[in-house]
């Protein structure tokens, strides 16, 4: 596979404006894959920052000033997304197969009962005034959290396997199968769902 690069400078060596459709991978000049070479990313990021940072364009024309500001903001955004494993996977999947819809995931079937149970316990805890009872409810929430964390871990392993399969396809210059894409999309939605549950439980415990 080939890595795409964006040319930040035109033939007169002045900064170009970056079209909206240039993707994060191309912007930073790293392979469009699920797996990321962090060393390469850092190297490219520092190189680009040293060339394009607004600090070096204070005496330039306004055109160049604005473009350097916009370019670095885009580069920083690209780095922030690509550095994070999950944000990177979501970004790449959305790039190749369209936006993941928010809230369209269904709870994992075999956990449905536990989730409902945990949410009920959390609601109960919120209006519980007895110290002893509250302790018991907290214990139950902690146990549920453990169970969801285990689920998350197994889903994470699944995601790893799928992203490896995706990258294998990409390296052979073939498109990942529809089945694989759907599977990754589902896994990411499930993960999002379970993360939301976990953080809502954390909030209930904190309050």
């Amino acid at each position, binding site marked *: 596979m080939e890595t795409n690069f964006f040319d930040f400078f035109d033939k007169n060596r002045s900064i170009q*404006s970056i079209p909206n459709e240039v993707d994060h991978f191309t912007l930073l000049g790293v392979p469009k894959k699920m797996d990321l070479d962090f060393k390469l990313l850092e190297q490219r990021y*520092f190189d680009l*920052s*040293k060339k394009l*940072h*607004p*600090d*070096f364009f*204070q*005496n330039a*024309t*306004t*055109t160049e000033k*604005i*473009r350097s*500001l*916009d370019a*670095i*903001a*885009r580069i*920083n*955004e690209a*780095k*922030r997304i690509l550095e994070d494993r999950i944000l990177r996977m979501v970004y790449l999947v959305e790039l190749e197969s369209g936006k993941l819809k928010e809230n369209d995931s269904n709870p994992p079937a075999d956990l449905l009962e536990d989730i409902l149970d945990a949410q009920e316990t959390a609601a109960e805890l919120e209006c519980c005034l007895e110290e002893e009872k509250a302790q018991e409810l907290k214990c139950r929430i902690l146990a549920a959290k453990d169970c969801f964390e285990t689920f998350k871990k197994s889903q994470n392993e699944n995601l790893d396997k799928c992203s490896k399969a995706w990258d294998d396809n990409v390296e052979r210059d073939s498109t990942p199968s529809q089945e694989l894409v759907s599977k990754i999309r589902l896994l990411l939605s499930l993960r999002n769902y379970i993360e939301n549950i976990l953080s809502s439980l954390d*909030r209930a415990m904190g309050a």
Partner: protein
Amino acid sequence: MLKVNDIIGIDLGTTNSLVAFVENNDPFIVSPDGESNIFPSVVSFFNDRVLCGDEALESRKTNSRCTVFSVKRFMGKGFDDVKNELTFIPFEIDANEKEVVHVKAMGRSYSGPEISSIILRSLKSRAEKSLGRTFTRAVITVPAYFNDSERQATKDAGRLAGLDVLRILNEPTAASLAYGLHEKNRGTIAVYDLGGGTFDISILRVKNGVFEVLSTGGDTHLGGDDFDRSLSELLNEKVKKTYSVDLYDTPEGISKLILLAEETKVSFSNMKINSKIVIIDNLPSINEQYEIKITREEIELIFAPIIQRTLHACEKVLADGNLAKKDINELILVGGSTRMPIVKNAAEKFFEIKSHSDINPDEVVALGAAVQGQILSGDRKDMLLLDVTPLSLGIETMGGTMGWILPRNTTIPANAKEMYTTSEDNQTGVDIHVLQGERELVKDNRSLSRFHLKIDPVAAGIPRIEVTFLIDANGILNVTARDLRSGKATTIEVQPSYGLTDEKVENILLESFEFAEEDIHIRQLLESKNEAHIILVATIRALDNLGKIKITKEEINKIKDAISDLEKECKGNDPNAIREKIDLLNKITMPFADQIMGDVLKSALENKKLSEALRD
């Protein structure tokens, strides 16, 4: 090709301010012959004159009602934010000014930026006097934990002082630049900065001249002042016990106790003593001399909770950066309060390493600001600073909760885009409420401003407005919006929650009490450049995002020529010539303004009252 440095670095501190400059790659503090490097951040108002610095500090005892100190604590704040502090403030806060804190002195109200601008102007003239040249460009430092309003207020202060503020720089980051200059150190650095009124902790990674901030945190209301206040309370309690007098009853009493507390704190830092007799005299309300004994143990006991708060922030910052204490290779102590042995020991014990203090902790921030100035001037190219935003950015969503846009510790400049549409037919606008903070609920976060997006009345759900939230290298938010259906820029009405509006800044400039002849020229120049900048940005952005708009190549080239003419003129020093080129660009783009630039440019063009008024 290196350019000549013409940018001063200013540490605008709560207690003291300094100005620095770099010559021959060497940063140094600038002070007129025979004067101290340190300039007290104090302004004293009299009927016929305004004093600043050491002279103002002197009059703190005699003119305490009209002597303003620690104004930095009020920058970017509203009246409600500071009303709990009023007991400790001998000068008067104007209770009628709710949105922006104003100080009342000699029958007039002054906003925080106005008072800071008096200090900045003095610093500017100190630099000019001792280096024998004029300066119009500056880097000004702020606590890393300052929010958008506090940064904007600082920038406004610079503008009011006739300075083009090229960068609002974080103090701990500035300190690391000053250190990085001498030691070509690599590794991970913690900068613990406890100043007069604020606390910052920043973790940076330094590699091949790139200074990358990994995480930052702190408290903008925690510093030397808090030590002074708690010690003055202790003194007052002891006076009450022994002499049955409450000195907090009069402003002079409070002022006196705070000054004595500060002196006592310093003597315990400088001397290896275990106790001290504090003498309270020369107060109109008392006719005898009070003697109070204070021990080191007592002081350390009341200071411990304040120091503990700094260590909590340190823990949070390590966690944010996914770092453990053992990852930190160097510890830099900054700020006058780190002179206190109890503070220094606590920081060293926390990070489990010895601290650096080879550079004077009072001067290191200003020196770093000057280094950043040198970088911005184009005179130094081997260093680059990558800083972060200290607070998460969000917008109000349904039910009064925060919708996160950018997490804290995102490298700046940073941007995020959000799409907006309408929920009702013929809706003519959308309101966006922007906030900063880490809490779930809107009411617990800091309101930055409200934006009103104007939308053409069409069926619900049809408009597609893309709003870009850009945090620039100063950590200041810029919001732009574009209608994706037409490609037009969309007007945004900005209502800052706690800041001076542009109009207010201009009015202050106009009625400024010190309107020297040369000042007028510099102001005219800065304002015409400011105006040119707004118009250039709008035009260039519009040309870069033409979309579906029909315009011939020839017409584009004509506009581009007018742009570069205006840009060239902006390098010069003639405000009238700049105005002429603005008018020319205006004339050329007018036929297309409706089509290309939408309302942004039109409103930018209308917004030229100040330069009109300044034109003679």
